[in-house]
Structures are given as C-alpha cells and as structure tokens.
C-alpha cells in the first residue's frame, strides 16, 4: 500500500501511455490515432514532470527581490554584485526546474507533430475520400488490380 501511494504517479503514467499506445495500434480512424499519439506523448511528459516533484517544495521561481522589474535595467551593475552576495536558495525548497524545461520542448514538439499529422490526414482525405484505415487500404487494393 505504501508502495502504491509513493508510486501511483508512475503507475498512472504507464496506464495512460498504454491507452495511447493501444489506440495508435488498434484504432482505424486516422484522427483517433493522432489523438492516441498525443495521449501517448502527454503520458511521457507526465513521467518527466513527476520526476521533478519534491515534497514540500514550491514553484521554481525564487522570491522577488525588493526592486520591481522596471528598475532592473537601471540598477544592472548594482544588481549583479548584490545578487552574488545575497542569500543562496535551498535546493529542497524549489521543484527541480530541469524536467520542466525538457517538457516545454516536448510539448511544442508534440503539437508540431500533431499539426503535421493532421495536415497529412487532410491530404489523405482529399485523395481517398475517407479517413478510415481499412477503407483506404481497400481502395488501394482495388486500384492495384
């Protein structure tokens, strides 16, 4: 039971990923396949983000310093010196930023792939008049004969 509470995020990601993978392989509708592909990718993102979680930590942004944003430019040199002399953040208080950065990239890559997949789907629809895999294969076979 302890194991379950500690790890359920990792179990859930496996479940989601398998739902996505199953949809990619077994669905016949091309758009459904792409939705499955997106779910598959978000499952991996869920895995990565879960890695970076720390119990009792906060968002990976350090507390704002006293000066507002607008003064940064003017106090540039000043800030640089003081930043280094200031306090150091305790790593345990902030979530691990690295997985977040990686996943921003992965999300953008995912939407790019989805967009391209949808464009190809539209082209297929223009050529075959269908977005069902079995109907398309049927049409391909009939043109071969």
């Amino acid at each position, binding site marked *: 039971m302890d194991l379950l509470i500690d790890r359920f995020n990792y179990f859930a990601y496996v479940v989601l990923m398998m739902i996505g993978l199953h949809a990619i*392989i077994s669905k016949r509708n091309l758009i459904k396949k792409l939705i499955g592909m997106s779910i598959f990718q978000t499952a991996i993102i869920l895995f990565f983000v879960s890695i970076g979680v720390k*119990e009792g930590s906060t968002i990976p942004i350090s507390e704002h310093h006293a000066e507002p944003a607008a003064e940064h430019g003017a106090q540039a040199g000043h800030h640089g010196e003081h930043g280094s002399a200031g306090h150091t953040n305790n790593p345990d208080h902030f979530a691990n930023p690295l997985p977040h950065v990686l996943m921003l990239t992965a999300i953008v890559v995912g939407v790019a792939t989805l967009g391209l997949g949808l464009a190809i789907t539209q082209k297929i629809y223009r050529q075959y008049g269908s977005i069902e895999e079995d109907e398309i294969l049927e049409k391909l076979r009939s043109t071969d004969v």
Partner: protein
Amino acid sequence: MKYLSLIIVIVTGILLLHASQDFPDWGDAHSPANSNQISQHFITQTGEQTAVPNFVTAVLADYRGFDTLFETIVVFIAGIAIMAVLGLVRMDSLVNAPDSPRDPTDRDIIVIQTCRVITPVIQLFALYVVAHGHHSPGGGFQGGVIFGASLILMAISRDLSAALKRISARRAFILAMVGILIYAGIGMLCIFMGGNFLDYSVLHPLLPATDSVMARSHGMLGVEIGVAFTVSTIMFAIYALLSSGGRLKGGL
C-alpha cells in the same frame, strides 16, 4: 490487430511497471534526479549567474538555449511542412490574399463584438507574458501561443479572410523567419564578440549599463522575443492552412 496490440501493450506495460519498483519515491527531494549537482546548481546559482529569478526561463533560454533554438525551428518546420504537404498555394503567390468575406448575417453579432473587445486584451496579456517571463511563469512560447490564439480567435469569430487581411500568410512566414533570425542572430553575435555560440555574457559591451551577468538576462529577453515572433505567427499560419485545407480561403 486488436489482440496483437493488446499483447504489445501488456508486455510493454509490465516492463515499465517492473522498472518503476526501482524508482525513488514520488516527491522525494533526495532522489538522484533531484539531488544531482546539476539541478541543484540551477536552483542555487541561477540568480548569481544570470540574474533571472525564474529558473525555468533561465535554463530554457540560457543553459539549454540551444535546445530552445531548435524547438523554435521545430515550430517553423511544422509551418513550412504543413504548407508543403497541403500544397495548394504556391509560395510566391501567398501575397494575393484571397478576399471573400463571408456573409455577415450568418455570424452572431454578439460573438463578433465580444471577440473584438477581448482580442486586444488577450494580445496585451500575451506581450506581458513574453516580457515578464523572467519573473513569473511564461516566456516566449507561452506568450507567442497566446498571441497566435488571439489571431485564431479573430479568424473563428469573424472569418479567415478577416484575420488574413490583418496578417497574411506571407507576412506570417516572414515574421516567423525574423523570429528565428533574432534568436540565431543573437547567437552569432556572441561568436563575433568572441564567445561561444549563445554565450550572452560577452554581449555586455553592446548593451548600456550592464555587466556580463545582466547581459545574460537581456540576451534571454532578446531570444524570448524571437521565439514569440516565430511561435505566434506559425501557430496562426498552421491554423489558417489546416482550417481551409491549404487553400487559405473559406475556413471554419
């Protein structure tokens, strides 16, 4: 096919579950990934090395800035790839933006007027997100997507040609290229100033009243603006191409 896929899925699932027994607990601050010196370095040293309070922005745009450059290029690739795939419009004829405004009576006036009011607010918020990415969640991607979404909203609430009249597909691609050029250009500038590619710290002689730490911060702002240009315009271009089946006419 269904059974084959079930078998594949179950085997893979068991394999992955098997490994997850070996994982550190969820939320463990001392797991190898969280206690590694690299991620600790990002938390403890970012303020000192780059003067950016948002670690994610600092890592995204500076430490791993090269990834982000290519992420931007991926977005750009998606744009030109979709144009190449749907391919009903020649590239050099994009300038003749087709003008066939839809009959205004089939659009609800309340929807149009509401969208007209909130679009500038969304766009202003997008600019804020881009500019304030150093201090709060956000940055070039998020702001860019929001800006693109405002254009998409315009296209949905009125029609595609109304949005294309404001920013044609040709102009969208030009701005996308400008965005990447800003990003990669800042990187090249770093080489010319004697540093490595994307080493913003050497830019400080060019920027007034900065040292090498603040130069990094400003360099990041520059590349975020480049990212925002590319992402916002390409998102809109992709929508315009997908919704009109590549014809850039009609649409949703």
